[in-house]
Each structure stands twice: as structure tokens, then as C-alpha cells.
């Protein structure tokens, strides 16, 4: 179980001068949602948290150790990422793809063990992909690919999950299934942070929210304190209406 | 007055006819190696030679003074290298060539770009193509070039000297015991000549037997293995440059070769053999000498 903390972190969004320093603590069991309009830096934030790009100031720590001091392999054992975009240069099967999630856990000379294979199969089954194990990734639909990316992360078993729009391309059923999966992971002691465009999913599944403004301003806190219509309208520059449906808050954009 | 008119006309006509006859008698005609007849009414005064071999032949035929331009690598006789260049044999500077206003261009049948040659002909410049493939071809080339350049006597003399020299060699080695010979044109890739090639003919002339004489191509590329199997008694090599023996030293790797065991590895300066010019006689003499040396080592 890992905790991810930032201290005075300013992400490096090209063309943006300043930005509020972020002091976040992503603890085991928490589900964080990152909200913001296009170009606010949500993806940049996730990549910075994963150590894939340098920050402008401050630092990211995993379990109290600065990310920059850890080897990449160690980082990948603590921390996994679902990317927003998937591109495939070479042909690969679904099973092979899920199996690369095991990479951080294997030494260079090791072959994947039966246990790794079982984990990959399990992950695929969990995302309704068990039947597709032999299929070429290039032949999958957008939603299937998205689920495959999540299955790969599931096989990776990191303590911290960073997911960039995990519900992208997914039908309603699978949106809920994936959010439930992330929720279960958090319940099992992992920390989850995801970028979302859907306020309703954020309201329903996240316990903490981080609002990122295009200007670099940021505010964060527990979901019920952050879901203030006025703040959200300012965030998106869009008028919103909200209502209560079956016990959860629902937001609708109104023209 | 009127009565005398027919007489005047007759005289004029006779005069003109005489002139025409005179011109026809002066016209020099020769057939080139592409089977085209070239006729010049006056001997060529400004000749451009488009191969190093043509340059050499022109000088040997006594027409050296009329040569106004040559191509790259025309290094023999030495005064030829002083002459202006019109590019290389396969990439001619037509502009410069035409600007020199030649009245005869000596081309190379397979060496010069055909398109550029035709262009020259369309511009009205006579092109005489040569590419001797036989000893007699070299001799007649000397005569034909001399004829076009108005140096018939010198040309005939040079040709006769060449024919005579070769005839002497032929007579001397007609009954000499045969010597299996490998002639190395190039080392990388390894290339030789067949019997159709002039060098192959020189080998035969000297009583040698070209071990790759029967191959189909004029300059075949072969592998070392084939040479080992053929096991020639003599290895003759040209080289990069006129005095480079490195190719021969290379064969020392195979002591089981007869030519290596008997030290019959000989260098012959490539320009003496590889150009179809009278110097081939000198090259032939040297080649024959080497084979004679090899016979002595039996």
C-alpha cells in the first residue's frame, strides 16, 4: 500500500507561467477525481505524478521518498498509469498486452511465470476480455482497448492508480463497471486518482476532488465541499443545473 | 560571238566537271567500328579524342598535332595530358567540345554516351567511332585515323610496325609449349578476361592458355575458388596504378597454387595491355617474356 504526496508541486504546462503549488496527499483507500476544462493540465499532472515528466517546482513523494530518487522499476511497482491515448506500432495480442503489466515485477532474466499468466487472465476476465485473449489489439474497438489498458494496470498491481479518463470510449455499463472496479481497488487499500470529464461520475465515485483551472489555479478537498455549482460553473465557464437523483447529485449543462 | 557561246559553255562545263572530279579524288573515306562510313573532303585539322585509347592511336598515327582536346585519363603520350579536357569519356562536356569547333571527333563505340554522340552528329560534326577488338583492328585503326587526318604515310608505317612486331612474336611462340595463364584485371571483385578479349588474344599469341578463356563474358567476374581449381601455372596482374604489386602478394596465401609455388606471379603495367593501342605490342612482348620465364622454371 502506497501513499503519494506532493510538496509545493507546480506542473510544467507549456505556455503557462504560474500555477498554484499543489500539496496533495493521496492516501490508501482514497479515490480522487481531477476536474478541469480542456488544457487545464490534468494529463500533465498525472504524468508528473508518475514521474514521466519533470515538474517546474516542488516534488512528488511515494511513501516519503522523492520519486526522482527511485529507480523506474521501483516506481512502476508502486504506481501505475492508464493513458488517455493508446497507439500500437507493432502487432500484439490482447493477452500479451495484459501480460506486460507484470513487467515491473520480473527481473531481466525471468520469464513470465504461470502465476503472472494467471494474474493477466484474471485481469482480462475482470474486464470482460477473457474471450479476446488471442485477438490482435489493432482489431479491438475503442472501448475494448480502454478496458484492456485498465486490465493491464490491474495485472500490474500498483499501490497507486493514476487513470487518465478511464471511462473514455466506454458504454454506460462498462463505465459503471470500471468505476466500481476502481472503487474496489480503493477499498482494498490502494489509492486512486483519475481525470474525469463527467461531473456525475466524479460526484458518485470520488471522495476527493481536485479542480484545475486553465490559469493554473487549483483547489482541492473532499467531494461534498468541492461540488459547489458556482465553483464548477467558473471552472468550465458553463452554466450548470443540478438535481438529486437516487441519492446522488447530478449536474447538467444548460445552454 | 553567239557562235562561240557553246564553246565557252562547254569549256565551263568541262572545268566544273574537272573540279568535281578533283574533289572526289581528294575525299578521304573510312569505315568506323560501328560500320559507318565517314568521308572528309579536307583532312581533319581539329580532332577531339573521346577515349584515352583514341588519343594514343591518334598520336601513334602521326596526328598528334591535330588533336585539340581529349578526355580524362588521357595520359599517353605525355604531351596528351597537356591538352584541354572535354569531360570524361562517359560524361562529356558537349558545350566545351562544340566550342572547340572540331572537324572530327573520335568516339568510343561502347564507352561514350550514345545520345551525346548522336547530338554531335546532328550538329554536323563527323563522329568516327573506334573500338578495336583484334590486333588487325588496331592496325587498321591506325591507318584509318591517319587517312582522315591526312597522315596516311605515317599511319601506314605505324600499322606495319605493329603488324610486324606481332607477327614476329606469333612466329616465335607458335610452337612453344602451352602455359596455363590467369590474367587478373581487378582484385575486388576478382575479374579476368576471356579469349575474345584483346588481352586473351595476347595470351594465346604468346603460347599461353587462358584458364578462363571459354567464359561467355568479355570481362567475367569469378571467385577465388574457381581459380584454385583451375590452378594456372602463371598469374599475371595489372594493378591499381602502374607499379603496384599488391595483388600478386595476395596470392601468396595459397602456396599450393602452381603459380605461387614456382613464383610465377608477374606484374605487367596495365596501360601496356588494357588499351587497344600500339603499346599493346610492348605489353605483348613482356607477357611473352614472362611466359618464357615460367617455361624455364618447369
Amino acid at each position: 500500500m502506497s501513499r503519494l504526496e506532493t510538496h509545493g508541486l507546480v506542473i510544467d504546462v507549456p505556455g503557462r507561467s504560474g500555477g498554484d503549488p499543489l500539496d496533495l496527499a493521496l492516501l490508501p483507500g482514497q479515490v480522487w477525481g481531477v476536474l478541469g476544462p480542456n488544457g487545464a493540465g490534468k494529463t500533465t499532472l498525472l504524468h508528473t505524478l508518475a514521474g514521466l515528466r519533470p515538474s517546474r517546482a516542488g516534488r512528488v513523494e511515494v511513501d516519503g521518498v522523492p520519486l526522482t530518487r527511485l529507480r523506474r522499476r521501483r516506481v512502476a511497482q508502486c504506481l501505475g498509469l492508464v493513458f488517455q491515448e493508446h497507439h500500437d506500432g507493432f502487432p500484439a495480442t490482447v493477452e500479451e498486452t495484459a501480460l506486460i503489466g507484470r513487467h515491473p515485477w520480473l527481473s531481466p532474466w525471468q520469464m513470465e511465470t504461470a502465476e503472472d499468466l494467471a494474474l493477466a487472465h484474471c485481469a482480462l476476465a475482470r474486464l470482460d476480455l477473457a474471450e479476446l485473449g488471442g485477438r490482435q489489439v489493432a482489431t479491438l474497438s475503442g472501448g475494448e482497448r480502454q478496458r484492456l489498458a485498465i486490465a493491464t494496470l490491474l495485472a500490474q498491481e500498483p499501490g497507486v492508480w493514476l487513470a487518465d479518463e478511464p471511462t473514455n470510449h466506454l458504454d454506460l455499463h462498462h463505465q459503471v463497471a470500471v468505476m466500481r472496479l476502481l472503487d474496489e481497488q480503493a477499498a482494498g487499500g490502494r489509492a486512486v486518482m483519475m481525470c474525469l470529464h463527467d461531473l456525475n461520475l466524479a460526484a458518485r465515485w470520488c471522495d476527493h476532488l481536485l479542480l484545475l483551472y486553465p490559469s493554473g489555479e487549483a483547489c482541492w478537498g473532499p467531494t461534498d465541499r468541492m461540488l459547489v455549482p458556482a465553483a464548477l460553473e467558473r471552472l468550465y465557464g458553463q452554466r450548470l443545473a443540478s438535481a438529486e437523483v437516487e441519492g446522488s447529485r447530478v449536474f447538467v449543462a444548460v445552454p | 560571238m553567239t557562235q562561240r557561246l557553246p564553246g565557252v559553255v562547254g569549256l565551263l562545263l568541262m572545268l566544273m566537271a574537272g573540279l568535281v572530279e578533283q574533289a572526289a579524288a581528294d575525299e578521304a573515306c573510312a569505315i568506323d567500328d560501328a560500320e559507318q562510313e565517314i568521308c572528309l573532303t579536307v583532312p581533319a585539322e581539329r580532332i577531339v579524342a573521346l577515349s584515352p585509347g583514341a588519343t594514343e592511336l591518334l598520336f601513334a598515327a602521326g596526328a598528334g598535332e591535330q588533336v585539340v582536346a581529349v578526355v580524362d585519363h588521357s595520359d599517353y603520350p605525355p604531351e596528351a595530358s597537356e591538352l584541354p579536357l572535354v569531360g570524361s569519356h562517359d560524361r562529356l562536356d558537349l558545350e566545351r567540345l562544340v566550342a572547340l569547333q572540331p572537324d572530327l571527333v573520335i568516339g568510343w563505340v561502347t564507352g561514350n554516351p550514345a545520345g551525346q554522340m548522336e547530338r554531335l552528329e546532328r550538329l554536323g560534326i563527323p563522329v568516327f567511332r573506334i573500338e578495336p577488338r583484334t590486333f588487325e583492328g588496331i592496325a587498321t585503326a591506325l591507318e584509318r585515323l591517319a587517312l582522315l587526318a591526312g597522315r596516311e604515310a605515317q599511319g601506314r608505317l605505324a600499322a606495319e610496325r605493329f603488324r610486324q612486331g606481332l607477327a614476329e612474336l606469333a612466329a616465335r611462340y607458335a610452337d612453344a609449349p602451352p602455359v596455363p595463364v590467369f590474367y587478373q584485371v581487378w582484385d575486388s571483385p576478382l575479374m579476368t578476361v576471356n579469349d575474345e578479349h584483346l588481352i586473351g588474344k595476347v595470351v594465346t599469341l604468346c603460347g599461353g592458355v587462358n584458364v578462363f578463356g571459354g567464359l561467355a563474358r568479355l570481362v567475367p567476374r569469378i571467385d577465388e575458388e574457381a581459380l584454385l581449381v583451375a590452378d594456372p601455372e602463371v598469374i599475371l596482374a595489372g594493378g591499381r596504378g602502374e607499379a603496384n604489386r599488391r595483388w600478386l602478394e595476395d596470392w601468396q596465401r595459397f602456396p599450393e597454387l602452381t603459380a605461387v609455388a614456382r613464383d610465377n606471379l608477374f606484374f605487367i603495367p596495365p596501360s601496356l595491355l588494357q588499351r587497344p593501342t600500339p603499346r599493346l605490342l610492348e605489353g605483348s612482348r613482356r607477357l611473352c617474356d614472362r611466359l618464357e620465364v615460367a617455361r624455364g622454371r618447369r
Partner: protein
Amino acid sequence: MAGASLRVCAHGHPTLGQLALTLGLLAAAALAALIVAVALGSAAVPLTDSLAVLVGGGDDMSRTLILELRLPRALAAFATGGLLAVAGALMQVLLRNPLADPYVLGLSGGAAVGALLAMLAGLGSALVSGSAFVGALTATLLVFGLAHGTGSWTPSRLLLTGVVVASGWGAVITLILSLSPARQLPGMLYWLMGDLAHARGPGVALGLLVLVCLLVVPLGRSLNVLARGGLQAAALGVPVRRLEWLVYLLASLMTAVAVTTAGSIGFVGLVVPHLLRLVLGNDQRLILPACALAGGTLLVLADTLARTVIAPEQLPVGVITALLGVPVFLFLLHRSR
């Protein structure tokens, strides 16, 4: 026959057993090709004599033919083919571009310029090889330096730099060819087409091939991940920058040695990795050693044909690799649909 059992690997990851079986079959094919290469030539040596020589017997002529001519040449062909195929596979992963080959970054151009200049100066074959090697390394460093210039290099930037520099080399090669005397041209053209006739002493190339194969086996899984893209690989714990440098330098060194041994032989580096991917899937732990064996086998066979088809005359080996490889590749591509 082998295809059916190998196809299994294409789905899912290969087990150690499948890996050993596939590589064992390929190694057997390589050995068979080497035996054919040693047994065939423009001189007829009975097979029994060939085998006798290999175990230390035979007459002098057979010994010379086989031990001094055919065997070194066959081994050089094997090493060159293997190096080119592995270098091609590595370049394809490095550039995330299936169309990459060992020469795509202009390395063969640099080597060719070095070799042709040495030939123009009339230097011997050892110096031509040395000059080609220097040219190849110069090309590598040039492209690397230029692509790296501003501090960040992406595969596409590297590729673009390499392709532009390669066409620059091409122009220089044409310039040298057009300035060279006619008698030099056959040697130069044969060098450019690739030629094993003067490949002596396959030791360095073979050694490097074995070394690289040992080195890439532990890197294989990281390369699998890298093939999915740099960010994804970094997220999965691959030290991307370091690995890419290593791959680039290894592939360049291999190509430089191959080019130095036999001139620039095309086709092997591009098609052998693809051919194997079509049959074996894309696990680098399998593909890279398989490339070494299959690339080597292809070039040994091609060179044997080049030596013997119109013996004692010789054909350029690059022509044969293409004539052999194109139909096989097209067949597999057609079948895979």
C-alpha cells in the same frame, strides 16, 4: 510442419519450451545452410571429402577450398546476415517504425562514403574496411548529435534526421561515383551492392553477434514494452532513455561491423524481422535470437547461390537476398490475412 507448432507462440507469450524448440529448429536450419555452403562451390568437392576436411582430414586442395575459402566466407555471411537482421529488429523497436532498417539512419551511406573514398585513393581491402567502419561511426554520431541537438529526441525526430542525412550521403556517393575512373567503378558498385568475396576473418562479426544475442536476451522484455511506446514503457518501469541509447549504439555498432564485412547488403535487415514477426509474433526475446539465426541462414544461402548459380562467374549477393526474400515475405503476408 514447423509452422503449425510455431504459430502457437504467436498467440500469448512463448514458454521456455516453445522458445527452445523454435530456436532449436532455426539453429538446425542455420547449420544445414552452413553445411550446404561449405559443400557447394564452383569447384566440385565430394561431400565425403568436405566432411573429412571438417573433421581434420582431406587432401590439400580440399582443405584449402573448404577451410580457407568456403568456411570463412560462409561464417562471415552468417554473421553479417545475423547482425543485419538483429540490427534491423532493434531499429524498428527503437524508432517504433516497422519500416526502419539498419540503414535507415544513414549508416550505410556513411560507410559507403568511407569505403569508396578509400577505394578512390587506391587503398587495400583492409584499409577500405577500416575506412568504411569509420564512416559508419561518423554517420551514427552525426545523426545522433543532430537529433539530440536541442536536448530531447523523439523517435520521429531521430528518424527524420537520419533520413535527411542518409539522402545527403546518397548525394556524396553519387558524386564519388561520377568522379571515379571507369576502372574503379565495378569494384565500387559491387561494394555498394554488397559482396562477401573479400570477407576474410569472420571472427569480429561472429563475436559481436554472439555478444549482442546474450546481451539482448535480458533486455528482451524491456524491448517488448518499449515497442508499445516510450511513455507506456516508462510507466511500466523501463528506463527508456538509457535503453534507447543502448539500443541505438548496439544497432549502429552491429550495422557498422556488418557493412564493414560485406558492404551494404540490403533487404535482410528490413524483411527478416518482419518475416519472423508474421510467424512468431512480436516477443523480442524470441524475435531477436531468431533474427540472428534466420538472417544468418538467409545470407549464407543467398551467398552460396551467388557463388554457384553461374559459376565460376559471380553474382552480387544482395540481388539474391531480395530474389529469395521477396516471394517468401509476400507469401507469408498474404497468408497472414
